[in-house]
């Protein structure tokens, strides 16, 4: 690698290590606001107990400089790579992996990564195809945006896919999202963010659902038809009464985000990916000269 590439690789590694730990300790302001608003409208006694404990926990994490949740998750990164960013994605991936490993060893963080058959730990939150990286390539741009979303297993285990048929229509999509979230009950640590991916293909719908949970809380899809469905599902989900931690109450979800793709005329896939109330994410922008700006959200 050239000197420029070596320096950039080090900057990306440093950013990955910082983002992983930062995301685990300091949840974003939009999420804090959503949790406070939930506590303001919850009327059930166990539900209120849960939400007050959550708010207390967020403050304790800040005061003690500790992790919000013990589940350090699997590290998922979303990268937007400009076509003129001077480090190839193959090298960006290596840096993200090295940064994840370094953060895990240096903090230290619990390592969750295991071989999927033998269940033996594979190292410091890295392994074969871990961490997971979502890529987007941006023409006419020289920057790199990196977002780290540590994904806990409690919520990831509550992922659902259904290949609805065109005749099921939008009603079929709504029904599947509702039955998935009611079925999940308290397991994914509600109230969280319901990510829904619709259209595309089976694998792409789930990919989109994961993209949806990583958006800032309460943002809306740019397509007004999809945005309307987000509003409608958000309302319906909060009528189910599942409540905080599944103990019953008014607030079952903080938000419902949908990402969509055009699809085949005979397909109507719908995927649900849940993000727990500790919806951790942290972002950075990296300039071609290696400068890192940790405050830029995308």
């Amino acid at each position, binding site marked *: 690698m050239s000197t420029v590439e070596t320096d950039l690789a080090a900057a990306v590694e440093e950013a990955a290590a910082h983002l992983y730990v930062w995301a685990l300790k300091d949840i974003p302001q939009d999420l804090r606001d959503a949790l406070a608003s939930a506590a303001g409208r919850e009327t059930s006694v166990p539900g209120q107990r849960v939400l007050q404990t959550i708010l207390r*926990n967020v403050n304790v994490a800040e005061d003690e400089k*500790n992790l919000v949740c013990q589940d350090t998750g699997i590290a998922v990164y979303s990268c937007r790579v400009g076509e003129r960013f001077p480090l190839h994605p193959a090298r960006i991936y290596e840096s993200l992996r090295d940064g994840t490993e370094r953060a895990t060893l240096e903090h230290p963080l619990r390592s969750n990564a295991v071989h999927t058959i033998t269940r033996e730990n594979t190292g410091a939150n890295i392994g074969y195809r871990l961490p997971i990286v979502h890529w987007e390539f941006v023409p006419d741009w020289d920057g790199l945006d990196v977002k780290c979303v540590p994904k806990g297993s*409690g919520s990831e285990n509550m992922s659902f896919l259904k290949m609805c048929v065109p005749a099921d229509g939008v009603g079929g999509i709504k*029904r599947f999202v509702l039955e998935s979230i009611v079925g999940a*009950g308290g397991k994914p640590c509600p109230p969280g963010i319901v990510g829904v991916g619709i259209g595309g293909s089976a694998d792409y719908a789930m990919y989109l659902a994961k993209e949806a949970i990583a958006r800032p809380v309460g943002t809306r899809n740019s397509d007004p038809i999809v945005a309307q469905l987000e509003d409608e599902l958000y309302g319906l989900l909060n*009528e189910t009464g599942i409540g905080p931690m599944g103990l019953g109450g008014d607030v079952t979800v903080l938000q419902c985000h949908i990402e969509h793709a055009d699809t085949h005329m005979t397909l109507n896939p719908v995927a649900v990916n849940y993000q727990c109330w500790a919806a951790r994410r942290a972002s950075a922008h990296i300039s071609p000269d290696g400068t890192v700006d940790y405050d830029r959200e995308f």
Partner: protein
Amino acid sequence: MANHEVTFPITDPAEILKLRAGDEVTVQGHIIGIRDRTQIRIFDQGVEPPMDLSGAFLLHTAPNVRKLGPGRYEKICIGTTTSARMVRFTEGLGSQFGVRAICGKGGFPDEAIEPMQRLGMVYFAIVGGAAALETTQIEEIEEVAWEELMPECLWKFRVKDFGPLTVGIDAHGNSLYREVQDRAQEKLKELYARF
């Protein structure tokens, strides 16, 4: 919905019988951390646990720790995992080892209701994800067994004012999770009728 303070391990089974689904509980004393692989070893591989579990409070956990020396660990962040994966061990924990309370997040499915009633056990719901707070309530890691299963070892923690916990399933056949699901299923029919 009453408030209780209970010290574990318990010696008097009546301590469990006075708890009702929905009640708030704060726990003192000693609790045992346990998880998937720990219970797979006990029940599927038939290995006797090297800790006394009679009257015990079990916590579904796998903590972030720092090793200080042989068998000695310092807490970093200790939180609670989803219980439902481990429901099939409930009967054995109660009947073979005398466990009285299981604490986790997200609830136990209905199959836990009958053995908990028969054996005088409760399920405590903790707030999942609230690990920073939980860590401050764990005073010390007193003992660790089966370190080779790290982090899914058997852990003995000394706690102070551990909670607030909610009784999710009591020893009288009541489950908040069952009640919430029954109501939600009725509600779903109403919601589906709208579209």
